[in-house]
């Protein structure tokens, strides 16, 4: 009752502003080209991202590929029980989260630092060279990268040679880096940074070009040196980008990658190298136990979903820019 008068008044002030479905229809008509353009992508999204969700039913069956849906045997939460009760699962989960965490922290810190430094370089030629050199490893496949890392760390590799040369170790006592389980996370972290640091700077460098040069000039007038300008102008300038990327990456916390662990892992470092994906490969796919793979996949999706929304929510409360 109360809203009616205001409605009429507004109708009087702004003649005939359509509401509800009608307004939607008019907007739709106005933007028909845009809508049409997005249709294929919506269809793609539906087919490839929503339809497969039907496959989640497999997690609750003892799935046999040849049988039709109605012939499958339903087993409830059996596969989830197997997953959660296996003692290795905790270890595998720990490794996954640890390696993701290392990747996340190291990835952000190194990429932002490198981007800040590159941004300060005034010699264009030098900047270009540094950028190209740091991008390059990104384009090497992990198979090749893992071989490079293995060779570098082998008993007759360059690191052991250097240690020998400096006298830190004696001949015959070369360190078997990939054979010491505790070293694995470090090796993984360093390898990932080497491979991706350059690539990760791109988005920050792009964000930095958006900062109004007037701000730097003003800061300089106020007597801010290079470090101060980096701290008070550049960093706040790219903060929204950092936060959005952070939220997105937190959503991927259970995706610590597959190739580096699979290729660098061996029997000796398995306690630290085996992550969720490798576990699923070994006990799910390699054994034809698709149901277990799906159960693990579901688990990952749900956790990622919670993490993503959680991080987004925190950002929202802190009044920071966010994903949605």
């Amino acid at each position: 009752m109360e809203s009616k008068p205001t409605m009429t008044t507004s109708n009087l002030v702004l003649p005939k502003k359509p509401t509800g479905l009608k307004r939607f229809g008019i907007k739709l008509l106005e933007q028909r080209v845009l809508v049409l353009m997005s249709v294929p992508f919506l269809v793609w999204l539906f087919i490839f991202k929503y339809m497969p969700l039907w496959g989640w039913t497999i997690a609750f069956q003892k799935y046999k590929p040849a049988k039709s849906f109605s012939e499958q045997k339903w087993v409830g939460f059996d596969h989830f029980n197997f997953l959660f009760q296996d003692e290795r699962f905790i270890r595998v989960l720990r490794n996954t989260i640890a390696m993701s965490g290392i990747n996340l922290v190291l990835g952000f810190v190194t990429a932002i630092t490198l981007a800040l430094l590159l941004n300060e370089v005034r010699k264009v030629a030098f900047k270009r060279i540094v950028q190209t050199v740091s991008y390059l490893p990104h384009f090497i496949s992990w198979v090749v990268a893992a071989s490079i890392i293995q060779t570098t760390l082998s008993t007759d590799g360059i690191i052991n040679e250097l240690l020998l040369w400096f006298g830190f170790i004696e001949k015959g006592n070369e360190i078997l880096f990939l054979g010491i389980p505790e070293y694995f996370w470090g090796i993984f972290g360093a390898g990932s940074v080497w491979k991706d640091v350059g690539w990760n700077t791109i988005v920050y460098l792009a964000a930095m070009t958006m900062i109004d040069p007037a701000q730097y000039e003003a800061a300089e007038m106020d007597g801010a040196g290079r470090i101060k300008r980096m701290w008070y102008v550049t960093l706040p300038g790219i903060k929204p980008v950092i936060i959005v990327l952070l939220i997105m990456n937190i959503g991927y916390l259970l995706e610590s990658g597959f190739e580096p662990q699979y290729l660098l892992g061996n029997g000796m470092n398995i306690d630290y190298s085996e992550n969720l994906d490798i576990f699923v490969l070994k006990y799910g796919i390699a054994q034809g136990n698709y149901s277990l793979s799906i159960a693990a996949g579901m688990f990952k999706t749900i956790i990622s979903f919670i993490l993503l929304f959680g991080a987004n929510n925190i950002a929202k409360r802190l009044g920071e820019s966010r994903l949605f």
Partner: protein
Amino acid sequence: MKVLTKMLRLKGVRKKVRKKLLLVCLAAFMIFTAACSKNSNDGGTKPSDATNKPKETTEAKTETPKPLDKVTFSYFNGVAAAKDINTNETTIGKILEDQTGVNFKIEHLVGDLNTKVGTMIASNAYPDVMIPDAAIDKILDAGAFIALDDLIEQYGPNIKRVYGQYFNQMRAEDGKIYFLPFSNTVGEYIPDPNINQGAFWVQRRVLKEAGYPKITTLDAYTDLIKNFVEKHKDEELTGMVSLTHDWRFFATSNPPNHLAGYPNDGNVIVDMTTFEAKTYAADDNTKRWLKKLNELNAEGLFDKSSFVDNYDQYLAKLTSHKVVGFFDYGWQFGNAQNALKDAAKQDPTQDDFVYFPLPVTFDGQKDQYLDPPGFVKNRGLGITVSAKDAARIVQYLDNLLTDENQILQKWGIKGDTFEVDDKGRMYRTAEQIAKIDEPFNEKFGFKYYSWNWPLYAGGSFPDGNSISPGSQPEVFQLSLTEKDKEILDKYGVKTYSEMFAAPDDRPWYPAWGIPKEQGSPQQIWETKKDEITKKYFPKLVLAKQADFDKVWEEYLAAFSKLDTAAYEKWTTEQIKILIDAAK
């Protein structure tokens, strides 16, 4: 006016652009939907093909048997790596096509077998004929192979003749035959003169320097290596390496079984009197073997990178001339050995670095390194549910199994790739042997036909000639270099396999070939056992000598968590079944 027309034109252009954009979008969308629907169309037409074709051919068969219309079937090979090819592009395949009118388009595996086969299963679209190799359990599970019994009954007199004695072993649980294995013996068994199976290998120069001693015990073998490395301190030699990479880990975990005098039955040792299967991964044999490696490691004679090196690094080490000895299967390090042999052919002084196989056991007991004439039951070629004309394929396969075609498949064409002397013995001249290199194998078709089809896998033709040219003594002798003959002569043997004891009869052999159901307790046991051994073996070998027993206890504790008794019981039962089937 001018402005107005310009504006109009502009508007027109803009409209056109808009229309174009829309069209592009629509086109993209339509291509997309078309791509989606194309698949289903294919699926729709196939069955009708399948129902039409057999009729045509059977009609053709009853009316005029000879001029068959030409067909091409698809053939997927999940095990070998070779160029994809049409069989009728090879000499052998062309002759067979002239006989049957059938051509096969061979596709080889690229990438990961399980992924490839998994995709086939998920889409329910298979090649007409396939060799799923290690993924065969998945294929059978998915019901992708058709039962061959009726087809063999109707079209396969030769298949019956060659495989008949194995039919009982080939039957699946439901009593039907779904695929044709390859390792069937025909006629008299002739052992391979080369060592393609396991052995302890050592560089030839080591034996030469030691005066060609007879080495039969593990201690003698390690002493041989120790002495040699000590005498050549300045060469920075590696005493022993061991292959551990990924699934090839068995090259490190199998030796205890061989050292105890048993052939490669996989995870078990089968007692020859009670026929009980016992695992050996945590028994005294394995302890003794690992203790020996531990000892070697303490003396700096074992390369500890063995546990982190991958397969390529391992092969590279073997060709580096630095590694004195190791255990492995001939087929597994064949690439390295061939490279060394080729170098020795060019330059006889390089012969020192070629590896020589030795029948080493713990205490010099009778060795069983040579494969008994076994029958691998879980590998083979099957016809899939997607096959358009299974009858025609079975006829082709049956036609392969005549003596004439087996000679063609294995030996080639008389006067071209082999000769026959006046006593009826088949042989190859030196020129023919030189001619048959890898490119020739591909062009002629040996590469594609010498295995991976129903065939006479081993044994002899009715006239006594060996089925495989490599096993024919006349051919083997011609393939030896002067240096080869010299070292064989020193040991008083004519072939490498004569160094080893003859294999005992083991009707179940190989026990690793017993099919296991996907995700069964046996499979999970094997996976877990692999994981535990891969974790503890390095620890045991690299531990300080004094700590060895302590680490061994830890290993036993971890190993005891597995339900090994159930695995052994299951294997014993399966072996009993196989023994009964072979009677």
